[in-house]
């Protein structure tokens, strides 16, 4: 089915949708034509993903949700089953987490599998898949197991998977949810080249700050309503991050005056072989230190080494023994059946345990809830409180701001400031420039397998620059 240049490539009209009844999205309308892009922003829980699932027909045909209104993508009506089945040939998709989109063991298998779905013979599919891998620089890793690819390489594989069949439309649902500034730059490149090729691009994103310069049309989804965003309203967007943080001036090295709680020299960490080396690592009482670097650079590995989960390959870490590691997936920390039981765990320090419920803003309404049923932000919050219950001297947080909207992000900053003011030290692995500005006293920056201290302002600016954000 050929699309006419004046035809809307993506359009929805008065679309309402939900899981048991159409109450999550309320009468949303938008239109994207050839070579046009639209950005939909909104806070956590506003229904962004529901909108994506509804307009592509997944909600009604796969998840048995309820969808009312009209949708048209590439001249097809995804709400009708016969058109829904043909829809994939018109769209390329990029979803939140590269880890959750790859189904096959090797990059070449992944792309071949997709092309075979569209009817290509094995030989044709393999030839075309190889070309697509070359275009994203993965030709030398075509037969590697995907578990041996770095985070960045997995992301490039999902980009190749979204365009390997040359679709006229690109749909993206929060593609930056778990990626670093280097990945954001790649997603920006994909959007730009897709628009240049005349494709229609629809991006759903809770961090529009990274993309707003690429789109003329921006929508805000809030409370189920989709509104066109006007630049003059910028200051009123409380819960959506549209602004680039000011990285500030460099103030010179401030080592702090508290006692050393972590100290290491000539450290090498990794699983079996060294993936990260640091000549010097130091942390003082009441200090917040950020470990900054791309996905797969060893940030988590060094945190786990400090936590004592794995031994260093070279060197030794000395200092305070009471360290607690909070994983990137907060679910891994939960053991009890309710929030209340988690915050009253007898294994915790009795004094620290006493004040925990006051630190959980939703305690009265959610104390009987199963921790796994909380929202992502609440689960992350609970995992940090569980850690505080063990009264650690050093709190190790792995990507604490990932997946948080602006409101929850600001709450997290306040919480960690309170933790710091209580004399505890916090080490954060992150690639979020906001955390550097808002919280970090010092920054260790990872580059080419080496970690060294860097100025806050310089690190923050570098992350924005890498992402290609217009400031």
């Amino acid at each position: 089915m050929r699309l006419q240049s004046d035809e809307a490539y993506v359009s929805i009209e008065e679309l309402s949708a939900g899981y048991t009844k159409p109450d999550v999205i309320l009468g949303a309308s938008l239109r994207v034509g050839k070579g046009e892009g639209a950005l939909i922003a909104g806070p956590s829980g506003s229904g962004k993903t529901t909108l994506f699932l509804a307009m592509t027909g997944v909600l009604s045909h796969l998840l048995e949700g309820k969808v009312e209104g009209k949708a048209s993508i590439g001249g097809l009506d995804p709400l009708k089953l016969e058109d829904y089945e043909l829809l994939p040939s018109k769209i390329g998709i990029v979803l939140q987490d590269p880890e959750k989109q790859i189904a096959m063991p090797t990059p070449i298998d992944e792309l071949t599998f997709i092309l075979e779905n569209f009817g290509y013979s094995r030989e044709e599919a393999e030839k075309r898949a190889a070309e697509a891998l070359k275009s994203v620089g993965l030709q030398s890793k075509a037969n590697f197991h995907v578990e041996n690819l770095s985070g960045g390489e997995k992301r490039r594989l999902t980009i190749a998977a979204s365009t390997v069949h040359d679709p006229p439309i690109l749909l993206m649902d929060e593609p930056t949810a778990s990626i670093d500034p280097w990945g954001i730059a790649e997603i920006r490149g994909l959007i730009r080249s897709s628009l240049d090729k005349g494709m229609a691009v629809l991006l759903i994103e809770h961090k529009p700050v990274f993309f707003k310069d690429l789109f003329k049309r921006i929508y805000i989804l809030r409370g189920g309503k989709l509104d066109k965003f006007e630049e003059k309203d910028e200051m009123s967007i409380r819960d959506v991050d549209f602004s680039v943080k000011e990285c500030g001036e460099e103030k010179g090295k401030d080592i702090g005056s508290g006692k050393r709680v972590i100290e290491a020299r000539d450290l090498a960490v990794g699983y079996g072989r060294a993936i990260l080396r640091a000549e010097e690592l130091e942390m003082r009482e009441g200090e917040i230190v950020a470990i900054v670097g791309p996905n797969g650079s060893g940030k988590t590995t060094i945190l786990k080494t400090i936590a004592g989960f794995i031994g260093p390959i070279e060197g030794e870490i000395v200092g305070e023994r009471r360290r607690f590691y909070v994983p990137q997936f907060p679910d891994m920390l939960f053991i009890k059946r309710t929030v209340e039981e988690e915050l009253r765990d007898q294994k915790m320090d009795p004094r620290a345990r006493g004040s925990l419920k006051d630190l959980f803003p939703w305690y009265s309404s959610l104390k009987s809830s199963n921790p796994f049923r909380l929202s992502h932000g609440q689960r992350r919050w609970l995992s940090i409180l569980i850690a505080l219950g063990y009264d650690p001297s050093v709190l190790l947080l792995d990507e604490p701001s990932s997946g948080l909207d602006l409101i929850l992000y600001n709450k997290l900053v306040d919480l960690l400031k309170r933790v710091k003011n209580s004399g505890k030290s916090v080490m954060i692995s992150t690639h979020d420039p906001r955390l550097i500005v808002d919280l970090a006293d010092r920054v260790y920056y990872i580059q080419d397998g080496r970690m060294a201290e860097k100025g806050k302002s310089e690190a923050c600016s570098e992350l924005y620059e890498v992402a290609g954000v217009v400031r």
Partner: protein
Amino acid sequence: MSDKMLSPGAGFIYALSLTALAFILRSEIVLLAMVIPNFLLSLYYGRKKVAWVYVLILISAPGIFLNALFFSNYGTLYTTILGRPIYSNCISSFLIVFLRIAVIGSVGAFFVSYYTPMEIVKGLEKELHFPKGIAFSVAYAFRLMPLISKDFSEIRKVRKQRGYRAFPLTAEEFITYAAPLLRISYERAFWTGVAMELRGFRLRGKRRISSREQARFEK
């Protein structure tokens, strides 16, 4: 399709047959004879990838023994443990159930380590004419296994840090282990399912590319 000595379809039938036999046979020696080659082959092809399967089998041993102790402790006196008599049927029941689980685990581990998920999809679809949904589900389950193994190892370490046992021994501990594992795996499987759906999985086997598309590709 595959340069393996045993095609994926034949491998699947082999694994399925041995699993069925494990339920039927009651000879410890025969069951052990089935475990050993599969155990060695799975370690040869899979090494670390399947080691966790054997860890889980070993974890199940105390539970199986307790079960045998409560429900099958009769026959001739074999020995005493902590003053409690252990009869011959308790030992043989324990061995049979444990070896049955070991047969199923080891043949599954061999299957997972010998074939890639892509080979399994092709084998089940083309050789055995399985519906594509089942073939893909089986293949994807094997893709998930190393990820679950990684999650399991992380959960162990995090629990230890909270002052809990690193390995589950009681039913309640097992549930608290399984809950995060299932939740994380479900989320992964859900989004992979959505991605595959929107990448044309429903079209698989139904549609041939048009001559126009073919021409564009040739260009």
